[in-house]
């Protein structure tokens, strides 16, 4: 592992100047999680528009450069995408987004916390919609 690969200019930039940082006034999804090991915390809010598209995505949180840059980059990727995109999102996508740094097992959790929060929120939202529908078909 080379920390020069992990802490590239772009990662530090997202850490120090996070995009989509803040809270939404109107949101349909509100998801929160933390990593008890490091104390990294992330809250994500999503406003869902027509066609099940994520119209607005914002986050707040605190933690290391990896967790905070990762979630911020993820909000940019997610914005405008349909909810189904979140279901397809994989660990590999997140690693690729971060420039495929060689992270040790304990730091991988930092990188993936944002994805976990987004998935938890979106799955919960889809699940609630599913329960509201009697026909039993997934939205």
């Amino acid at each position, binding site marked *: 592992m080379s*920390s020069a690969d992990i*802490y590239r200019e772009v990662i530090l930039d997202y850490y120090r100047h996070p995009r989509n940082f803040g809270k939404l006034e109107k949101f349909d999804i509100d998801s929160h999680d933390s990593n008890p090991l*490091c104390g*990294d*915390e992330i809250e994500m809010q999503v406003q869902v528009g027509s066609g099940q598209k994520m119209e607005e995505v914002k986050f707040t949180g605190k933690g*290391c*450069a990896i967790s905070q840059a990762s979630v911020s980059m993820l909000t940019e990727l997610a914005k405008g995408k349909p909810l189904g995109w979140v279901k397809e999102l994989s660990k590999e996508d997140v690693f690729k987004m971060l420039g495929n740094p060689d992270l*040790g097992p304990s*730091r991988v959790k930092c990188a993936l916390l944002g994805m976990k929060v987004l998935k938890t929120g979106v799955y919960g939202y889809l699940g609630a919609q599913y329960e509201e529908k009697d026909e039993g078909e997934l939205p």
Partner: protein
Amino acid sequence: MLKAEAFEVAKVREDFPILKRKVHGKRLVYLDNAATTQKPQLVVDALVDFYTRYNSNVHRSVHTLGEEATAAYEAARSKTAKFVGADPKGLVFVRGTTEATNLVRFAWGEKNVKKGDVLVATLMEHHSNIVPWQLLARSKGATLKYVGLNPDGTLDMGQLEDLLREAPRLVAVAHCSNVLGTINEVSAICAMAKKVGATTVVDGAQSVPHMPVDIGAVGADFYAFSGHKMLAPTGVGALAARKELLEEMDPFQSGGEMIKEVFEDHSTWNDVPYKFEAGTVNIADAIGLGTAVDYLSSIGMERVRKHEVALLDYALRALSEVKGVKIYGPPDPARRGGVVSFNYADVHPHDLATILDEEGVAIRSGHHCAQLLMRWLDVPATARASFHVYNSYDDVDALTAGLHKAGKLFRL
């Protein structure tokens, strides 16, 4: 500055085989001793010797191996007790400090704490000296209150006096903070607590491994520490208490070994300390603790302490010269244990630990099981470097060099 040595560190390092290994191609610089220390070859040999020569259960086997194992296990108890100025009859082997405080919670707390009682802990405690009292307070309808800190990271003794006016049942305090390094005036605190009839629990996890401790002189009712932080194997530690106090208490865990006689409807308890050592005890690791005590005694705890104060003094100076480093805890090395917690500009401690690891430098990052203290410091986490006998001035230099590298990577 003068790099004086209280003993020959290079020679001590030879006793620890792990220090020869490389991490990411670099010399291992192990500065995570407050979490756990490395083990000298002697301690590893003691385990191998037990398992290859006289492995047997203790106390009830009358054959040769059983008698040898019992003798070694009890010798470890005597040595450990002597090392900390405790009565061997009042020294219970436990898994570690956490099990010791839980033992007190159940075996003493369930019987002695009543509804409406006040329990006192401090904001600098490790979770192992907070959560058991939280649960005890909840189950008994008691209230847990906290002594705050002065800006320099020492205990607010005025606030302690105020809380003692409420005649608490229990006062729980660390001898040495695992984050700030603050050495608390535990003998004065125990004396003050005794005056108002409070029972005292002192967490010695960060004191016994690093400085001479005389539990008798401290005057604590209960004093707990862990073996693995003092060169011994994991899974063994001790709770020291007055024999009479242990005798009044109910058992903690129950089953074999801790009984005298078992009848269909009741049982009688074994003598202390065996009453609190239910089941087959951790024989090998207790013997390992005895060996670690021998090893530390051969260096001398006065010299261990002197060595750590010198390193601490050097480290505090070196770190404070790095622009952007904020150090927590008392500035005077004489008033703190061999642990330095700090933050470096906006570099998160986890990022710092990753960058240092690449240089072979192992530090701790996070909340150090002291979330109340993190909140008081108003930080989510800190980086922490902590020392033991095998650390050298070179190790501190490696830490400082690693910080400069982190500074470059983070464009500070």
